[in-house]
């Protein structure tokens, strides 16, 4: 009630002031007398429509020649072989720097490359500021040097003092639980399917927990992955409590001697407080008894822009994310936002998704990532 009244007061005062001003104008202009229909609200005459060219599509971003479909894979893909598909899309901007001199255009094209890769304005500024200082101090000169130095700086930002390996303790009498979280439609379930296959291929006994009880047929989707990779799955009722599903999975894993539970969760926006609370509960439950949460993987879609930072922040605050899975990196998006995520939150990218095939989940390779980011070969 009080807030309402204060708000009312404020609005009334504003309206009264507006009235004063309106009144002043009405008195000044001989025009419509008071009581006449109010003159139309202040509008600004639009400048004549801009020439069509101003709104014409920008210079094509895509390479003119169609990208060829990848050759049939033999064995798991490497990071580079997949990224090769999109290489060269932006390379024009940056590769032109090679061997060239450093001038204003250089900085602009570097900035452009970084921003287009979703690195973000702030991180881009930080990176380029450092670089500028070094150029001014004549430590480096020439396009090649600058590109190399920029690559080094990004790699330095991405550097982690610890391993990017997924943590698996494998202690006796405990079950490692990897929790996979993220917003909707980023590829959580697919990631789990691929992880299940890889982990069981690596000789671990994996159990899947279909913790996405909300999305229609999400458990079916995971079930198909379980079938494909020959692992077991624990499912709950649709619309049921996801914590219960995870709890059951851990219990069952402990009873049957599984080493690792991969727990799927329903996609949720980081702004939905109740769903975030639900996630916290899932994590608490998973950590109970024989279960021990050793990884909380946040799945980020490479096409996501600056919002990924907000996602990473919220999820980390809620469930202590331990690593990032960057999916859909085989498209045209560069996923540059993970540079900012790692820089601001210290969350390392652990694995990347490079396609829809079961083996298209590979370890993160900072070198290849940086090269792709800058459009280098």
């Amino acid at each position: 009630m009080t807030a309402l009244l204060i708000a009312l007061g404020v609005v009334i005062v504003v309206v009264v002031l507006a009235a004063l001003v309106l009144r002043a104008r009405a008195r000044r202009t001989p025009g419509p007398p008071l009581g006449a229909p109010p003159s139309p609200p202040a509008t600004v005459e639009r400048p004549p429509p801009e020439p069509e060219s101003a709104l014409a599509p920008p210079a094509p971003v895509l390479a003119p020649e169609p990208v060829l479909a990848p050759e049939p894979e033999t064995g798991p893909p490497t990071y580079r072989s997949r990224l090769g598909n999109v290489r060269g899309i932006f390379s024009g901007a940056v590769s032109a720097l090679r061997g060239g001199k450093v001038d204003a255009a250089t900085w602009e094209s570097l900035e452009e490359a970084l921003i287009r890769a979703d690195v973000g304005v702030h991180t881009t500024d930080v990176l380029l500021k450092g670089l500028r200082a070094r150029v001014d101090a004549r430590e480096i000169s020439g396009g090649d040097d600058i590109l190399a130095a920029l690559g080094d700086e990004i790699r330095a930002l991405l550097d982690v003092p610890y391993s990017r390996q997924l943590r698996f303790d494998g202690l006796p009498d405990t079950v490692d639980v990897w929790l996979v979280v993220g917003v909707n439609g980023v590829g959580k379930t697919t990631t789990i399917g691929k992880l299940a296959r890889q982990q069981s291929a690596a000789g671990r006994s994996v159990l899947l927990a279909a913790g996405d009880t909300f999305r229609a047929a999400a458990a079916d989707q995971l079930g198909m992955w379980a079938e494909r990779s020959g692992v077991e799955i624990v499912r709950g009722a649709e619309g049921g409590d996801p914590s219960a599903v995870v709890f059951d999975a851990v219990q069952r894993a402990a009873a049957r001697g599984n080493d690792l539970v991969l727990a799927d969760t329903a996609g949720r926006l980081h702004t939905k407080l109740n769903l975030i609370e639900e996630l916290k509960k899932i994590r608490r439950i998973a950590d109970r008894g024989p279960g021990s949460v050793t990884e909380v993987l946040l799945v980020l879609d490479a096409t996501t822009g600056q919002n990924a930072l907000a996602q990473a922040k919220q999820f980390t605050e809620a469930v202590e994310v331990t690593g990032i899975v960057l999916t859909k990196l085989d498209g045209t998006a560069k996923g540059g936002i993970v540079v900012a995520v790692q820089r601001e939150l210290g969350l390392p990218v652990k694995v990347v998704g490079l396609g829809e095939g079961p083996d298209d989940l590979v370890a993160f390779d900072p070198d290849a990532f940086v090269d792709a980011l800058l459009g280098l070969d």
Partner: protein
Amino acid sequence: MFDSLSDRLERISTRLRGKGRISEADLDEALGDIRTALLEADVELTVARRFCDGIRLRVSAEALSRSLTPGQQVIRAVHEELVGVLGGESLKISYASRPPTVVLLWWKQQGRNPILVGADLQRPAAVEQLRVLGGQAGVTVFSEATDPVAVARAGVEEARRLGKDICIIDTAGRLTIDADLMEEIRGISATVEPHYTFLVIDAMIGQDAVATAKAFHETLALDAVILSKLDGDARGGAALSVKGVVGKPIAFASTGERLGDFDLFHPDRMADRILGMGDVLSLIEQADRTMDRDEVAQGAARLMQGQFTLDDFLSQLRQVKKMGSLGGLMKLIPGMSKEMRQAAGQIDDGEVARVEAIVCSMTPDERGDVSLLDGSRRSRIARGSGTTVPEVNALLKQFKEMQKMMKGMASGNMPNIPGMGAMGGLGGLGGRAGRKLAAQGAGAGAADFDMLSQLMGDSGDFPTDASPFPGLPAPGAPRPMVSGNKGTKKKKKGGRVTPPKNR
């Protein structure tokens, strides 16, 4: 996390304060800030650049003819450009292809009879998901395990056979560089010749939005875009990017996971969202559209005389009510502290009716003199208005505060408004208005909408406590002018020289 565009605009406005006109350098700096804000909202780089060019054009075109302050010019140009880019044609729809499943509920509500065709044979259980959703919405779902093109063709035939009037085809998600899949979707499109093709774009998408939209547009000739996940905190600059590059309108927006969280897209709301700002201009437009000027002015006059009664309160309240939801209005006022803005979001307009009821339950005497209200009268009022005594007390307490504030204004001091924080947007506003009006003397100067908007736009700049209020002229009433301010008619307005109006 990020400065919103509105924060930046406010800073620009501060910086440009006191300048008669915008220099090239000022504009460059302002545009740099705007560009940064756009990029942080994930507007694509090329689009952001073009947007800034558009603003430059607008500002330089306006500079000659407008009496806005430079800061206001920039803000207004941004707003117009934004609405200009986002707005435009809307889409009339009868048939469609390419996702999403949620559309159908909307169509059901529109009294149509749709069928869903599951042509996403790629992702495990995608058809299952569609069937479940179809079940929830009570809509037929068709699919078969052949290939997507065949499913689509069969689906359309099935639709015809069953006499369905809308056939919605769900297709597999694909990355634009996957030539095979792009060829496949082209095949589907060529086979069923959809009347409408929608591209679903995630509101969180970054710079890649344009590449994606362009590639699909080149392959399929899109008709419109559907923006999903608008319920998150992403600014959704992608909307701007896609509109700017592909030139196709955004037809629908999805704002949640339930089937009902889906509606037509409103460009104006999106503009607000990207701006993230209190919108002074629409507040003023709203005021002008709805207010009964005489009544409000009368209230203003009494206010300035320090005789603000509950009757005045009631009439102002009714004026405000006409302008729309209180929470919405609060959001339009700039300089509001974050907490206030949040509180504004939670205001229930039903409460306003309760307040009105309380005041209406008083006798005219009581409204004129609050001190009459003793315990028994208060309980009578509570009963009469269907409220409780504490509520009546709260109202009276707040009203007394307000009265004090108004008295303060009349006597030249702008007291702190509770909840407005150190920013004291309104205090600043008052101070500014006071100065401005005093300088112009008896409202003879060029006070008008533009001025009001400039007052309000600049409001955040003034410390609340230090704002003198040297006599606000009360139009159409004895003016409680502070001596010395009379006869300032000829005095040039200090600091900012605004060219004469030529509307």
